């Protein structure tokens, strides 16, 4: 099976440029492995393209975007101020629907935070080399999404200044958290996930920070890139341990990423509430998180490759692969939605059946319809290659999924809580001004962090991309080292 080795990637019989144009590597030719990086890049041009994004003068458009994100962030902070000074009454949360927007937003953001580690860890373990161009980007997205996610449960505890009670810290009350509660599991899961994702992201970035250190010409940049690159010299003895550490981190992060959203789903599944108390939740939540996370990666990657000139690295094939994952996980999500109805019917349980009739036909049916259309119908477009490789179509579908996945959590939280067992305790949930401003404001926090990342840090994993180019592979240097040195390969 020599046709499947990377050495054959530049089989002279097939010219990349002739198949479908210079930047198109989305063709299917089983005799020829499509290149992961298009354009005629050598090591230096890869370095140049990526580091210039961090080292050039700040473009005006960046300031515009940064001011807008900051305005939204200020709005978010204002909402927190309102909450702290007036209390949880500023939210629409009421007695049956005690979770309301904060938990919907929490699950939404944690879900988005899954694609990064999935791309980094799982695709790495499966040797899916196409991850190299998008992993840095997606990992950054993960961390910022988890920051947004973490702020909601911390604020939702009611008295956020006592949020440290969530952690097992010795205190004057001689009390400890309850380790049998899924809410405490969540504290551990989300914090572990945030920490390990941050380490994974940072460790992956050390060699690239060293590249920036060596190319930066201003003193402040040299100091900070130098500080955070830890004196990296690219030593092969270091690379050896570094690669092992990266592999082990990937192996650790893989079960972790699956566990985090499972634990989040336990918050729901271990309760007695119809609509929540179901064993399908862990796999269904994980698939939904991957689905929503990839949609967010596509949403961010499409404009980024355009604006930052990264089309050679984030190629159409990358986007198409992500769209395939969106289609696949979207099908799992659709299957889970349907199975829930079957289970409710099959259970013969009065309250369970009511909860699932109330979803599509109750007062929140509009939210259910939005969720179902966005998450199940919209991705079906990706069955067609034309749609998978069309920028407007994939942006449309990704936006549908972003909206749909938020509504999924809204449907799960609200429809299950607002009409539980006793009709006398039923009530409707109506979000307040602050609820909506907080949701929008959290995007301000997310984009502020993301823009800072795009401005100052290497957006593409430089050393990893170099490693998947054909020049990075040795060519029988024992016998004909000289010939290879002459560059006869290209």
């Amino acid at each position: 099976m020599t046709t499947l080795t990377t050495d054959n990637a530049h089989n002279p019989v097939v010219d990349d440029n002739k198949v479908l144009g210079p930047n198109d590597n989305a063709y299917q030719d089983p005799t020829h492995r499509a290149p992961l990086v298009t354009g005629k890049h050598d090591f230096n041009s890869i370095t140049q393209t990526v580091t210039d994004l961090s080292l050039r003068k700040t473009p005006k458009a960046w300031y515009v975007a940064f001011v807008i994100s900051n305005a939204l962030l200020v709005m978010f902070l204002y909402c927190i101020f309102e909450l702290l000074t007036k209390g949880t009454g500023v939210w629409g949360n009421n007695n049956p629907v005690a979770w309301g927007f904060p938990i919907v937003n929490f699950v939404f953001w944690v879900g988005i935070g899954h694609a990064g580690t999935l791309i980094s860890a799982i695709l790495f373990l499966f040797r899916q080399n196409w991850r190299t161009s998008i992993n840095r980007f997606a990992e950054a997205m993960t961390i910022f999404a988890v920051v947004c996610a973490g702020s909601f449960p911390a604020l939702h505890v009611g008295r956020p200044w006592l949020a440290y009670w969530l952690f097992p810290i010795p205190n004057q009350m001689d009390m400890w958290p309850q380790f049998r509660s899924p809410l405490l599991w969540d504290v551990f899961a989300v914090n572990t996930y945030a920490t390990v994702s941050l380490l994974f992201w940072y460790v992956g970035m050390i060699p690239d920070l060293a590249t920036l250190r060596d190319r930066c010409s201003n003193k402040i940049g040299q100091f900070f890139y130098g500080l955070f690159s830890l004196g990296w010299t690219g030593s092969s003895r270091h690379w050896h341990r570094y690669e092992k550490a990266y592999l082990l981190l990937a192996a650790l992060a893989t079960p972790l990423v699956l566990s985090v959203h499972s634990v989040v789903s336990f918050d729901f599944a271990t309760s007695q509430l119809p609509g929540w108390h179901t064993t399908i939740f862990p796999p269904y939540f994980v698939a939904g998180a991957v689905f929503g996370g990839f949609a967010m990666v596509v949403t961010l990657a499409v404009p980024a490759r355009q604006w930052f000139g990264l089309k050679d690295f984030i190629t159409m094939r990358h986007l198409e692969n992500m769209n395939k994952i969106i289609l696949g996980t979207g099908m799992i999500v659709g299957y889970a939605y349907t199975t829930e109805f079957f289970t409710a019917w099959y259970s013969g349980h009065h309250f369970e059946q009511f909860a699932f009739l109330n979803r599509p036909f109750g007062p929140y049916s509009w939210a259910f319809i939005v969720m179902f259309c966005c998450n199940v119908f919209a991705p079906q477009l990706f069955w067609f290659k034309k749609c998978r490789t069309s920028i407007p179509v994939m942006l449309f579908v990704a936006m549908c999924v972003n909206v749909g996945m938020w509504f999924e959590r809204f449907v799960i939280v609200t429809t299950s809580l607002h009409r539980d067992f006793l009709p006398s305790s039923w009530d409707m949930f109506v979000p307040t001004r602050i609820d909506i401003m907080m949701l929008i404001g959290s995007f301000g926090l997310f984009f502020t962090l993301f823009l800072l990342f795009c401005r100052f840090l290497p957006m593409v994993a430089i050393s990893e991309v170099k490693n998947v180019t054909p020049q990075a592979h040795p060519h029988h240097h024992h016998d004909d080292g000289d010939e290879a040195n002459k560059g006869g390969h290209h």
Partner: protein
Amino acid sequence: MVLGMPTNKPQTEPKLVAMLAEFDSVDSILAASEKVRDAGYTKWDTHTPFPVHGIDDAMGIKPTILPWLVLGGGITGCLGGLALAWYTNAFEYPFLTSGKPQFSLPANIPVIFETTVLLAAFGAVFGMLGLNRLPWHYNPLFKKKGFARVTNDRFVVVIEASDPLFDKTRTGDLLSSLGAICVEEVED
């Protein structure tokens, strides 16, 4: 790994600490590494912009003990998580909730799992940094202007002066014979 170690003596005149040879391709660095290895040098290294496939064999790098550190971190995390849950909920502060047992393994597995992964990950990251002696911001190699290209597109062989086989002329000749773009002395 003596390179870059600070000496307590005040430095008066620059001292030769290593010889450096630059290469411009994966194939040439691999061929050069094999020759340096076969010449019997022990205190030497190559510096590359990305992990070069096959360089471990070409240089004779032994497998790292890092996986054991990760295992140690994982076991510590596992036992620590178990001890934390048992100590706080079954021993120090027993509190009856919904008639659940004071301590049962299944209810504690999620937290134990998370602490296991967390400490194993610490083992991987801090173990790797520790074994690589990083952070180490002072390094005489950084004084060489050409060395900055090692994080871009250059491949460098460095033989340290502290190597028992090191001899300025002979080591220099060896490096020149490998087809290097240039051979330089590194002083500290």
